[in-house]
């Protein structure tokens, strides 16, 4: 500034240039202000090219509504629950309605102390109260039965040193539990071969039913169960908690609005790569013929007969056993999913989740045909169900094929992809849409460079309200990694919790749950067709008029 001052001095010395000084002062004061004009131009240009041009609402019509859930009503009555089966899934279901073993709480608290990022205990405590009480529990393994009683009495969600409420009554058989007057509804989390039988008995006893998938083990019982649920009018929910996934609701709207064009192929998969994922569950301490009621485990006589009749008449004896049904086996008790004698295999256990998701999104119903192949290619531990399975379902009336592929020995994820003429949609907890380079609907936007074809142009993440513009690169980057909007209104919800909440609210408000008996019937028949196609090595067909599975 020295030079400046020197320069300005002569001016002031002349004493006749106040206007010049004023102008010079003004210039120095406002010298950089004109840059704001350049900035304004840049901002306006950016807005026009980057922000506004991403608007695609003329070819992409989608509502901004988020997932809708049946909301609990104030003053709803308390529902008294009976639990049947407290194995791995039974534990998860109880947790979803607010009841866990005190020892598990101890583990969570300990984990939280060691790692402040582990907030599972806080999350569990903050889970909404569903206004239920556990009045009865039944498990044929004493250790599980005792554990279920403890969980049911843990009404304050505390650890082993906490205060407990009254213990639920322990029943030795499901029949005794169903005869109890102080039970309004039951949760069935038994092995597959018991689902249908217990669900029917529960409905006949007037209890509402939440049943784990798949809904049945044999084909004949599927008809019986549907009739029984319809006749008794109990509120029935099948345990496909995917029904509560927010992105599935948005996917259904995308299909309805024809934003993919004609969908010709759907690809779904299961990918697991651990012994646990392949149903090689631990043998629990304290299990022996004295603590396990093997007779009950064997199954219901009528069901066993249906199973044996089918297997023998179709010459599939090689898939039965190999142990005698009456022979006590800890492996078969804890790892029952590995044998057709109790299980429905990959088809019933995992394909059903995928099928139900597709059915929820596209309402395709029972497929016209099913073809399967696979085998025991990795877990050669004596199991009879395959660990690699491909099943193809076709709906020629709708010109749609669904391809399911599964391996229990690789965790490579291949997504849930709906391939359409105009775009393909990949659905998980989030949803992404990628335009097809030969699309007609989006051709103009693709040519204008507004819609890219080498990456998704639209991403939906639960809680998001924006639906009318191309997703920006940054948003996409975060969304694909599940970082955006993982919280809905600041709270993360477990889909199983929401699914059970829907069932309980339907009981209170006399409504029909999303995965009702008709959906369950379709789920079961699709799974049975896939299983039979694998076992018999031929395509199985669905006779729509007779409602029967017929051989190809």
């Amino acid at each position, binding site marked *: *500034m020295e030079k400046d001052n020197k320069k300005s001095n002569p001016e002031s010395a002349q004493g006749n240039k106040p206007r010049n000084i004023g102008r010079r002062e003004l210039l120095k004061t406002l*010298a950089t202000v004109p840059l704001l004009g350049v900035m304004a131009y840049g*901002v306006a240009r*950016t807005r026009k090219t980057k922000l506004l041009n991403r608007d695609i609402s003329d070819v992409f019509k989608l509502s901004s509504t988020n997932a809708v859930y049946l909301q609990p009503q104030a003053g709803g009555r308390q529902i008294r629950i009976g639990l049947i089966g407290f194995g791995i899934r039974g534990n998860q279901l109880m947790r979803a309605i607010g009841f866990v073993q005190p020892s598990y709480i101890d583990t969570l608290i300990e984990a939280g102390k060691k790692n402040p*990022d582990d907030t599972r205990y806080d999350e569990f405590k903050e889970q909404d109260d569903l206004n239920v009480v556990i009045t009865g529990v039944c498990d044929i393994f004493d250790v599980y039965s005792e554990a279920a009683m403890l969980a049911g009495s843990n009404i304050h969600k505390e650890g082993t040193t906490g205060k407990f409420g009254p213990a639920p009554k322990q029943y030795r058989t499901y029949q005794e539990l169903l005869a109890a007057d102080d039970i309004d509804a039951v949760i069935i989390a038994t092995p597959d071969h018991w689902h249908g039988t217990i669900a029917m008995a529960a409905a006949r006893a007037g209890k509402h039913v939440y049943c784990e998938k798949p809904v049945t083990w044999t084909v004949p019982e599927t008809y019986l169960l549907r009739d029984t649920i319809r006749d008794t009018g109990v509120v029935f929910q099948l345990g496909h908690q995917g029904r509560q996934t927010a992105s599935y609701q948005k996917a259904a709207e995308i299909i309805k609005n024809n934003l993919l064009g004609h969908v010709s192929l759907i690809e779904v998969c299961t990918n697991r790569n651990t012994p646990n994922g392949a149903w090689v569950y631990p043998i629990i301490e304290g299990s022996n013929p004295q603590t396990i009621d093997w007779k009950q485990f064997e199954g219901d006589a009528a069901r066993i007969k249906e199973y044996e009749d089918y297997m023998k008449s179709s010459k599939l004896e090689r898939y039965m056993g190999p142990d005698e049904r009456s022979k006590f086996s800890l492996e078969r008790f804890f790892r029952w999913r590995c044998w057709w004698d109790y299980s429905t295999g990959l088809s019933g256990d995992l394909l059903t989740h995928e099928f139900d998701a597709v059915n929820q999104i596209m309402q395709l119903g029972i497929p016209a045909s099913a073809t399967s192949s696979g085998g025991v290619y990795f877990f050669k531990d004596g199991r009879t169900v395959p660990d690699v399975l491909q099943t193809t379902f076709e709906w020629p009336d709708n010109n749609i094929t669904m391809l399911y592929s599964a391996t229990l020995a690789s965790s490579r994820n291949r997504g849930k992809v709906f391939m359409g003429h105009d775009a393909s949609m990949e659905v998980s907890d989030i949803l992404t849409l990628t335009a097809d380079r030969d699309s007609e609907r989006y051709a103009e936007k693709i040519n204008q460079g507004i819609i890219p074809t080498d990456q998704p142009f639209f991403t939906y993440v639960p809680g998001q309200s924006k639906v009318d513009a191309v997703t920006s690169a940054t948003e996409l*980057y975060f969304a694909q990694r599940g970082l955006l909007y993982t919280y809905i209104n600041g709270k993360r919800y477990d889909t199983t919790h929401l699914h059970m909440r829907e069932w309980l609210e339907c009981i209170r408000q006399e409504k029909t749950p999303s995965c009702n008996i008709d959906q369950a019937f379709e789920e079961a028949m699709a799974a049975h067709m896939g299983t039979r196609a694998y076992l018999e090595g031929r395509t199985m067909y669905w006779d729509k008029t007779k409602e029967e599975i017929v051989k190809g």
Partner: protein
Amino acid sequence: MENNLTKGQLTWLVVLRIFIGWHFLYEGMIKLLNPNWTAMAYLLDSKGWFGQMFINMAGNPGIMNSVDFLNKWALVFIGLGLLIGCFTRLSCIGGILLLLLYTMSHPALIGAEYQLPFEGSYFLIDKNLVELAALGVLFVLPSARAIGIDRYLIKILPAGFNKFII
């Protein structure tokens, strides 16, 4: 203080101030114009000593709204202040605080992997910190008292404003 600056020094200080102001203002304006912009994902991706604090902020919708609001407008006002040289020292302090928060959320630590990775290779010192240091220089050498609105403000505002405001 500005009296001791040569023309060259003053020129480069003004250029530096314009550049940083320009950077802040444009960042702020773009966020302001995008109704869907939120820092939530950025905060959820925080690492280092203060990481959990930022993640907790992102989990609270009320706090998140304030964070977004403050961040956007702070960027705009700091940028504007630096660009036109108005309340420059205050703008420098604001800018330093903001950049410090960004650094605390995303420190350039060895082994810290971010969802949106740094575009270069950094260890401890990233571009945010370089900009932070530059703002420190601009604070101690207030060029706007020569070229900028502060040239006028310094004449009309009480001397108390000189220390931290203009």
